């Protein structure tokens, strides 16, 4: 094991498509980030971004289906945390979301989740999974708060 991989952690869990599971998965991610050495602000940003993503998976992806799971994979090293959240839904298009900062959208009730994920994480990528599902990958590097 190289130095860079020392202390590396991998977690893989499947959760029901419920809001209670969102809380449970968020708590797991927060605990993992804390254990990996992220500071309190970073932990808060990671858990918020993960929560927004988990809510999307449960609400828009799996639509609360009791037959579908939300899969959460977490990898941490001393430098970064990578979180992959995958649903089993029909997919939802995030490419043409309205800009929540535009004057005409400021007072909209919803539409800020993806924006917040981008604000709080260093990387965000999404891809559709065959035959069903959306996989979202979030990455945050340690000690880059001042850049965000």
């Amino acid at each position, binding site marked *: 094991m190289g130095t860079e991989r020392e202390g590396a952690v991998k977690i893989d869990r499947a959760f029901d498509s419920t809001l209670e599971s*969102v809380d449970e998965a968020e708590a797991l991610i927060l605990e993992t980030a804390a254990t990996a050495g992220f500071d309190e602000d970073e932990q808060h940003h990671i858990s918020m971004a993960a929560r*927004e993503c988990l809510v999307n998976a449960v609400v828009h992806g799996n639509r609360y289906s009791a037959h579908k799971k939300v899969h959460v994979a977490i990898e941490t090293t001393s430098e970064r945390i990578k979180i992959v959240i995958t649903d089993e839904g029909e997919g939802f298009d995030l490419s043409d979301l309205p800009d929540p900062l535009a004057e005409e959208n400021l007072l909209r*009730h919803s539409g800020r989740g993806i924006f917040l994920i981008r604000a709080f994480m260093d990387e965000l990528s999404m891809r559709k999974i065959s035959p069903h599902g959306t996989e979202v990958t979030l990455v945050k590097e340690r000690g880059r708060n001042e850049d965000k």
Partner: protein
Amino acid sequence: MNNRQVGDVTVVDVSGRITLGEGSSELRDAMRDLVAKGNKKILLNLGDVTYIDSSGIGELVSGFTSVSNQGGQLKLLNLTKRVKDLLQITKLYTVFEVHDDEAAAIRSFA
């Protein structure tokens, strides 16, 4: 969530998490109730709010527009640093009137 009447201003003390499935529905119901009862001066005290997500932000915005549409005012009191940061990131800090002092906030409704 607790309501207090200070003169003609309704102060709503909100605490804990305002997230989808928890506090956000409670906040939505409380705001609807206040608007339905004709309250037009509402001060949301967020000093004990520990966490707010995009759903919670959405409820704050909806409450603001509902009260405004009724000719009333909704203002915010005692934002924690994290809530303040969130409102700044989403450009909502300039939409809401925010106060740090309750007495001054109450007077501002006059």
